[in-house]
């Protein structure tokens, strides 16, 4: 028994020592600097004639490396560097620029597009890139279904002979000329072509690999695929015959999955990785204050929101949904959990996107008004509900659990008793898509910078069960959104979207929370890294010093 006492005492001492260490950390910022310098040194060694290897730390693994089969950002982060698209987005915006197509021409009626292709481009497997390759890709996609190629269906309205399918035919009118014929005009057509899922794959490799193409991707991009160990890392290396001279500058890029935000930051501090995605806003100031690190802000093109399933009581009543909007103190949430690196949202689309309706007045934080609205809806004593809190940090919502707790407290003020529940990410999305949640936190990062990619995808009745998790439907809204899709005149189109936002504001299926500025961090030796608003970055111009 004497032993036990001695042990307890020793334990106490050990804990006290640990405590002292923890307190010490405050003023010993220089200890972090030391490790930072070390990492700088290892980076330099790459400079001296050896391989330049960039390790990119991110929150999750890719689902597949065949971009057309997936919709998740972690897959596109890799495929954007293996595949090229016919049309590119600007360096840090979503304006269209030449990609594999050097030039394009649209007919007056908006029904025919003729694309001139770049000559002398090779796929990684030595196949030549030409009009036939483009046609082969579109034939493959159009011949699939929503399970195989989900993004093709939602951007081009369907597959094969289906009525909604926008593309009537894709034909090679020359060795380097392709003609697209559409059934009806589609305003964002060229922007759609620039989206990561529509990267052009080598037709011979697709044929050879069949279903396993996602494990052996072959494109024309700056890097070729080397190796993928699931849930750990994807390795790609320089493609020597890339069509832009002097690019890529790096010899090798390794994408490592490190799910925990603080573990990823520690890996960056210790020099294990060179770039880290998904930096917690509260760490932003620390990184800015460290000479060995640099902070990157990804231009904001997203929305984080609280969705309410409008088919469930009491959220079937618009008054209740408006009350929820008044009850939540968005500004406080943005200040606390986005550390101010976000803008309070009032519309489902972010302000950078054309068609944003700035005339709408957001619901003010006003608990009294919220209580009045609840009383008007016949619920003066409030109600009980389940609040889904996302289990993983996302760029549009750095910490879903904390935001949920803040909302829970706001709702308690108006007598609504919210119980926070959470599931594993895939289950969470599935349950929300099935309409099982009363209210849920979620968000969206735009893929092509078009209002259609937010309003139609997230709130139209056509997308109930897929991306419209709220089950919200409104015929007038649907008509506006479809009209906007086929409208080619930019001003008329923007006007349609403005009206659509008014309807959504009134019906309030969401509480729009914030448009965040996602943060990344890298060692000070990383140059020319320009984060793209779509969330996936082409790394061909990036270099290590």
């Amino acid at each position, binding site marked *: 028994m004497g032993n*036990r006492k001695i042990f307890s005492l020793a*334990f106490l001492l050990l804990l006290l020592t640990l405590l002292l260490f923890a307190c010490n950390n405050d003023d010993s910022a220089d200890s972090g600097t030391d490790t930072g310098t070390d990492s700088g040194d290892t980076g330099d060694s790459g400079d001296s004639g050896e391989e330049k290897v960039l390790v990119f730390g991110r929150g999750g693994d890719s689902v597949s490396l065949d971009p057309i089969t997936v919709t998740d950002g972690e897959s596109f982060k890799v495929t954007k560097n293996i595949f090229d698209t016919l049309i590119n987005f600007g360096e840090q915006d979503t304006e269209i620029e030449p990609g594999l197509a050097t030039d394009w021409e649209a007919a007056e009626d908006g029904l025919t597009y003729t694309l001139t292709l770049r000559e002398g481009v090779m796929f990684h497997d030595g196949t030549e890139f030409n009009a036939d390759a483009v046609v082969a890709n579109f034939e493959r996609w159009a011949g699939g279904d929503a399970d195989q190629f989900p993004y093709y269906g939602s951007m081009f309205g369907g597959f094969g002979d289906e009525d909604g399918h926008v593309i009537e035919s894709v034909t090679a009118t020359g060795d380097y000329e392709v003609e697209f014929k559409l059934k009806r005009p589609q305003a964002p057509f060229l922007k759609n072509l620039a989206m990561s899922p529509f990267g052009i794959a080598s037709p011979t490799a697709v044929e050879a690999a069949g279903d396993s193409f996602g494990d052996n991707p072959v494109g024309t991009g700056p890097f070729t695929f080397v190796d993928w160990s699931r849930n750990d890392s994807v390795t790609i290396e320089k493609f020597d015959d890339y069509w832009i001279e002097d690019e890529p500058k790096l010899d090798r890029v390794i994408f490592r999955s490190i799910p925990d935000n603080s573990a990823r930051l520690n890996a960056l501090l210790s020099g294990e990785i060179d770039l880290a995605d998904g930096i917690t806003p509260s760490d932003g100031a620390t990184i800015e204050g460290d000479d060995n690190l640099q902070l990157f802000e990804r231009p904001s093109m997203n929305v984080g929101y609280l969705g309410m399933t409008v088919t469930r009581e009491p959220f079937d009543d618009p008054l209740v949904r408006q009350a929820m909007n008044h009850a939540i103190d968005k500004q406080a949430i943005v200040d606390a959990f986005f550390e101010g690196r976000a803008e309070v949202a009032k519309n489902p689309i972010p302000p950078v996107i054309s068609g944003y309706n700035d005339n709408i007045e957001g619901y003010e934080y006003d608990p009294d008004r919220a209580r009045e609205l609840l009383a008007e809806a016949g619920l003066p004593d409030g109600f009980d509900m389940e609040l889904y809190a996302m289990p993983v940090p996302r760029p549009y919502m750095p910490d879903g659990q904390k935001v949920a707790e803040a909302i829970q407290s706001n709702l308690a003020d108006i007598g609504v008793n919210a119980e926070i529940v959470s599931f594993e990410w895939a289950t969470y999305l599935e349950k929300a898509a099935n309409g099982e949640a009363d209210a849920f936190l979620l968000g969206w990062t735009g893929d092509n910078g078009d209002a259609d990619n937010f309003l139609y995808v997230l709130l139209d009745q056509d997308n109930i069960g897929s991306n419209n998790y709220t089950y919200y439907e409104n015929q007038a809204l649907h008509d506006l959104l479809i009209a906007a899709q086929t409208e080619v005149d930019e001003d008329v189109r923007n006007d349609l979207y403005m009206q659509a936002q008014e309807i959504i504001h009134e019906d309030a299926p969401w509480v729009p929370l914030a448009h965040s500025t996602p943060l990344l961090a890298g060692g000070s030796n990383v140059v020319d890294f320009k984060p793209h608003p779509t969330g996936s970055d082409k790394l061909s111009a990036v270099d290590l010093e």
Partner: protein
Amino acid sequence: MSQSAVENKKVQSDKVAGPWKEAWRGFRKSKIAVVGMGIVIFFILLAVFGPLVTMQGINEQNLPERLLPPSSTYWLGTDDFGRDILSRIVHGARISLWVGFLAVVGSALMGSLLGILAGYYGRWVDAVISRIFDIMLAFPSILLAIAVVSVLGPSLRNALIAIAIINIPNFGRLIRSKVLSIKEDEYIMSAKAIGMKDNRILFSHILPNSMAPVIVQGTLAIATAIIEAAALGFLGLGAQAPAPEWGKMLADSRPYLTNAPWTMIFPGLAIMLTVLGFNLMGDGLRDALDPRMKS
């Protein structure tokens, strides 16, 4: 050792003190055990009266005042929702002690019942019960608790049930071995000989005489139960937001370890001190109640 043995003999020769009083004297002799009891009493008082006197609310969020360091207004600082950490720790004492106590009472009751049955009846009853205990002890206890909670669903009540369940075999085995030895004593033999019913033998004679180790094990088990509850809370399987459970407070403050270490240090200290208190007290009790000490 030898000194205390002499003392014990003196006490015995007095024949004034009852067994409990005698145990108390033994207990008092160990300074460290008294310190342990002091800590435990302090936390019990905190749990009972603390919530009545803390100034700040426990769940009222005040986001502009988040992550403030300890000051005269907020003695232990504020957490990431601007809530007073002191008030939350005080309320958390109520949760932790309550869970620890109830879980141990639950497992002691179940464990004692099964242990007595196994020890007294022997044969297949013993075989079945003992094998079940063996199986339960084969799992790391926290893993078993996680399994139980994931079946029942995460909540404080279910965490309590899980902790009670995983501690049953510890008590069961203890009682069983005690019963095995008591069963052979003359007074039980004679009780049997005069035809006393099993029920009465079990509950009026065997049970009270095998209580001492249960009390010792109970105090030590409260310490473990508090840690287990905190661990489940930390994993998000115990108390749910916004309850000020210590383990959950630790988990919530993980992102602020470098920026605001007080959010983590004080709940951690609270857990450590309570557990230390119960362990020291348990050790003292064991020394005082262990029959091997009296020869």
